[in-house]
């Protein structure tokens, strides 16, 4: 079976790289994914999906139905690109140039190369006529590079239930360098709001709180030190009250709970603020209203949950076994999220919808969210095969005992 899949992968390499190139050449900042969504939809049609659907959030979903109701596998990649500074790029961010074995351009790694690989992995299984037991769902989501993963939330809350599909596992096409990634730390943005009648008290309290929160070594659960950055301090006047808002970002570790972090921050801020005068302190997760390209509006909370799939859980084990059987590298790891704004929807899937998730994609985390981003073209083709192999191991009809060329 694997030799057959490899032969077909080799034959479709130009197609999958060409498709990734087309995605890269189509600008798709968050909330403006319409153009790339149309390309994804056309790609899914060519791939032979049984059902292709664009939901009210603008996510494009392709389903290959299995013989039974489950288990179902969700292959998930986002269509939007992170903000970029074109002046820092030596190549045009949307050139989609292919040279030195690399596809260059914004989102090549994060994660249009992965999206192309996932769509073509499904095509590979379809063309190889390998039957599926559960359904294979490929979802290209919107608004992932902004806080809140509202595209994924819409997919999980409304779209998939309406289609009668409940994923048992998810594979993210985010950049993993073809490793099997099983989690990352999270981030949250907190607004600490200090109010009072006396502007001097409010100003003093806000400065003191910002100093305290910005300098204190914060102990995160699990014994590690949590990063904490004061991003902004602003003032406003309303209804006779002076109001100071401190925007802070804090790294989250896996065992941490957002509510408890807020309690901790509030307790500290209150202690410092009340010592400077009569002020009130409120602490909340920062929220913003976001309008998707479909016109749908929703409120996004600025929380990127930390998550971790048990490295010895069946999803990891089956994935590792299948890749290894196909002669592909199966190196486990975790995202480091070295640049601001990075993250995945794994936390939403794991924490909010209890769907075990891993990452497997052709991109490289180190070049994502930076100038001159690229993805190796061989890695895109390899991810196509690897994703097909993983999908078959998780939701395919087993082929144990059958050979492709002896009978």
């Amino acid at each position, binding site marked *: 079976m694997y030799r*057959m899949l490899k032969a077909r992968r080799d034959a479709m390499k130009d197609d999958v790289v060409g498709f990734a190139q087309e995605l890269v050449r189509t600008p798709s900042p968050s909330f403006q994914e319409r153009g790339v969504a149309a390309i994804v939809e056309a790609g899914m049609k060519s791939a032979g999906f049984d059902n292709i659907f664009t939901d009210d959030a603008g996510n494009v979903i392709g389903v290959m139905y299995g013989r039974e109701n489950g288990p179902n596998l969700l292959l998930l990649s986002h269509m939007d690109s992170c903000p970029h500074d074109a002046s820092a790029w030596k190549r045009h961010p949307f050139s989609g140039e292919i040279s030195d074995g690399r596809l260059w351009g914004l989102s090549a790694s994060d994660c249009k190369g992965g999206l192309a690989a996932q769509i073509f992995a499904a095509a590979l299984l379809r063309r190889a006529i390998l039957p599926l037991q559960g359904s294979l769902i490929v979802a290209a989501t919107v608004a992932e590079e902004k806080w809140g993963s509202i595209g994924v939330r819409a997919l999980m809350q409304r779209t998939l239930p309406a289609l009668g599909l409940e994923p048992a596992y998810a594979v993210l096409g985010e950049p993993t360098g073809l490793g099997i990634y099983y989690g990352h730390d999270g981030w949250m943005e907190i607004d600490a709001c200090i109010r009072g009648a006396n502007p001097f008290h409010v100003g003093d309290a806000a400065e003191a709180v910002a100093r305290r929160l910005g300098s204190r070594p914060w102990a995160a659960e699990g014994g590690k030190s949590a990063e904490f950055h004061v991003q902004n301090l602003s003032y406003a006047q309303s209804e006779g009250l002076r109001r100071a808002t401190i925007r802070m970002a804090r790294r989250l570790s896996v065992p941490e709970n957002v509510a408890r972090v807020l309690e901790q921050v509030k307790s500290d801020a209150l202690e410092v603020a009340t010592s400077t005068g009569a002020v009130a302190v409120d602490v909340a997760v920062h929220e913003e209203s976001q309008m998707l390209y479909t016109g749908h509006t929703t409120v996004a909370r600025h929380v990127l949950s930390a998550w971790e799939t048990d490295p010895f859980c069946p999803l990891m084990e089956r994935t590792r076994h299948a890749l290894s059987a196909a002669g592909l590298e199966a190196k486990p790891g975790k995202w480091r999220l070295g640049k601001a704004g990075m993250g995945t929807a794994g936390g939403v899937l794991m924490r909010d919808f209890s769907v075990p998730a891993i990452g497997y994609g052709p991109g490289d985390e180190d070049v994502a969210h930076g100038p001159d981003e690229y993805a190796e073209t061989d890695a895109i083709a390899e991810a196509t095969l690897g994703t097909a192999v993983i999908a078959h191991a998780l939701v395919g009809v087993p082929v144990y005992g*059958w050979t492709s060329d002896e*009978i």
Partner: protein
Amino acid sequence: MNILAFDPGRVRLDYSLFRDAERKPIITGHVPEPDMTADPADAVADAVGSALNYGEIGLCVVRVVFGGEAFKTCAIADWLVLERLHEMIPQSPLHLPRAIETVRAVMRCRPEIPVVLDFETAFFAGLPERETVYAIDPGLSAALRLRRYGYHGIYHRAACHEAAHKAANREAPASPLRILSICLEPKPEVAAVVGIRPVYVTSGSTPLEGLPGRTSCGDLDPSLPGLLMRRELGPERVDELLTKESGLSALAGRMTDLDEILTVDDPSLNAARDYFLYRLLQACGAGAAAMGGLDGVALSGRYRKAAGQIREWVVSSFAERFLSGKLRYGVTMLEASRDRIMADDAMGTAPQILARIKDAAPVP
């Protein structure tokens, strides 16, 4: 009448066009795997198109590796038949989807051509129960539809028929002939056949059981896969190991086949040759025991050079040593290729098929 025979293998699609009972095909062709990246139906349509250059096609026949207990003879393709095959896909997940796809493609491009399905397992649908069961929980066997089949029924049936025909030309047998049928294909198979009924076969619930194949292990201690999986290999890797990296090639240390190991004098092939002949001897002994004796041996399959050696081995070694040389009807070698046999099978069922097709509903 022209008959177009398809063998939809996983690695490539083979086809041959025959005119009536002529032994040699008018054309043969195959579409190799890398060319089948687009719609596999295109390959079928191309083959049909090529065949139509030689006149109208009266019948198409498609080799189907698995038909379960439902298909005991050839069948004419219709929507109901395809649906029943679709239900059986988990029992033959690599081959049945390709066969169904091939049949559908023929019906789409030339719906007026009757398509006959020739099942490899049909010959073994009537195996005695003692031969089909495994000594495990019957409930589990039933739930998973586990039972023994043979997977070279097309060859076995034709070879036994030929052996019986030759025997009848010599004398009318007083009782049904007891034939050992040895099919020399990449996955060799031995069947014991009394009259027209098989009573023993080396293969199992999948083709992996039985004699060692070119790259498949054949019979093993059932605990070994579990043991290998405990070594962190996982089921996929263990399956690859047992189906693609074992068998005669593993023993030889390189890719080889039956023709080579039985005809080439190369010390590196000794282990594979000795093992194969030993397992073949055991299978022949078991088959003879299942029949309560042996009247003749029938050889078939693609490995013709190997067949010559096996014929000699049967006469000089097996029959001489274990039957005191009394192999009443000797060894019959089936000359016909499988696609020719399939064409014969299709022609044999044509009258009934053509009568039935008038009433058959079209395939959606």
